[in-house]
């Protein structure tokens, strides 16, 4: 399973990497913002994306819209501090499959990842 982590915080990417490793996923690429993520899509075709919202250069919502517009179909989990209902709806409309609000426990993120992948497999 190839996973792309998009977050401007290296600390947060490391935490997510640790959780993914426990789930058995080790093919991980990292990007520090939406622009960086777009530039990595050519060489690395992710099967799952974890995307932060607030980032410099290009925010996560813009990245998700561009990824979907370019035909990217892999599941996306938004992992963000943006917890308002209106934001969640905005993200889902943009093409996000699941949503995790920071702060989160490792169990919550792991559960959302499994749930998201199970939904995609079932579809």
């Amino acid at each position, binding site marked *: 399973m190839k996973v792309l982590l998009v977050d*401007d*915080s*290296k*600390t*947060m990417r*490391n*935490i997510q990497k*640790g959780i993914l490793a426990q789930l058995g996923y080790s093919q991980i690429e990292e990007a520090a913002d939406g622009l960086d993520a777009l530039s990595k899509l050519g060489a690395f075709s992710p099967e799952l994306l974890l995307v932060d919202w*607030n*980032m*410099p250069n290009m925010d996560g919502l813009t990245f998700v819209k561009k990824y979907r517009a370019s035909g990217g179909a892999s599941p996306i989990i938004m992992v*963000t*501090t*943006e*917890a*308002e209902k*209106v934001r969640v709806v905005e993200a889902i409309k943009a093409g996000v499959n699941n949503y995790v*609000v*920071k*702060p*989160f*426990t490792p169990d919550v993120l792991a559960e959302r990842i499994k749930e998201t992948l199970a939904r995609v497999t079932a579809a």
Partner: protein
Amino acid sequence: MDQSYIVPFVKSVQNVFETMLQLPVNIGEPSLKNQGEPSFDVSGIIGMSGDVEGSIVLSFPVTCAERVVSLFTGSELEHTHEDFADAVGELVNMVSGGAKAQFNGKQVSISCPSVVIGAKHQVHGRKDTVCIVIPCQSDAGDFNVEVAVRQVPVSANT
């Protein structure tokens, strides 16, 4: 400042530290920060804009910050380490994001965080906005959340 803006920060800082660091935080009596009063040695700073605007500072003495960052990252990081500021920035990001989610019905955006490291530094916000210091006590040490926000008058948003 509308006191209803303080409670969300109290709840959020306790939630962030309990969830991500398994570190309970006790809250002291909030007080007004005097102009020119220095923050602690390490400050994570975030700006708010939209219906509510201002700045949030999460400020620690160095030893407390190093303990907190170690709990957060799972590794011992001194304040000179390149990843130290990143961790402090992410903490203030989560505290601010969690608080603004409790501003019912308000459209608020937060900036990317900045981090200042240095003894006796001062953080100056808008002169027309008071700053409330929320003292926090934890097993990692004492630290503060400094909240200087105000509701934007309706006329300014139209």
